[in-house]
């Protein structure tokens, strides 16, 4: 699946998007896998309360299933307006 990062999450991880092979069932499982990869992921995902997630461009929760999902995006709380 494609994993996208925005704002400071993108800056900490160092790429705006990447293709990820995962066995995780849920967003939380995917986060655990990413955290285990490298320090920059562990730093970016250190506090989930500071992050939001969207699945196929719809806001979702961290316990949401990844079944059939093609695009996951992680970003800080939005600041539009």
């Amino acid at each position, binding site marked *: 699946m494609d994993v*996208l990062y*925005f*704002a*400071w999450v993108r800056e900490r991880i160092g790429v705006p998007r990447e293709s990820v092979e995962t066995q995780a069932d849920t967003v939380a499982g995917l986060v655990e896998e990413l955290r285990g990869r490298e320090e920059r992921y562990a730093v970016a995902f250190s506090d989930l309360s500071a992050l939001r997630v*969207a699945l196929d*461009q*719809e*806001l979702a929760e961290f316990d949401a299933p990844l079944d059939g999902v093609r*695009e996951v*995006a992680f*970003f*800080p*709380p*939005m*600041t*539009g*307006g």
Partner: protein
Amino acid sequence: MRVLVQEAAFDVAQQMRDFGAPDMGAIVTFTGVVRDNDARNLTAMEIEHYPGMTQSALTRIAAQAQDRWNLGDVLVIHRYGRLRPGEQIMMVATAARHRKAAFEAAEFLMDYLKSRAPFWKKEITADAAEWVAARDEDESALKRW
């Protein structure tokens, strides 16, 4: 309904020229402007967005407002990219039969754009660049709707 996500500047008067409907007696417009920081040394505001999601999120918010307040017309424009202090960032316009609905719908749109539309602001000064943090008040503002 018109929802525009764009880098270019917009002209409020031009946007209003064909806005509204014959049976709508009230039009409210709100324009958001890049505000300088307290130190008055902001050089730019960089606005990042999630291209695939932005248009659909804004359209959904506008459609909710249209249904709930029976709006005859609704407009949302939000810019992205590098903006300078004083530049217009975004605008909303609502057309309703009476003013109360037009004002309320505009406030609803603004509250939802703040924390449910995928934009992120970064303040650039001569010696720093800092992401604007979401405020708790912005999240709690949604509860009144």
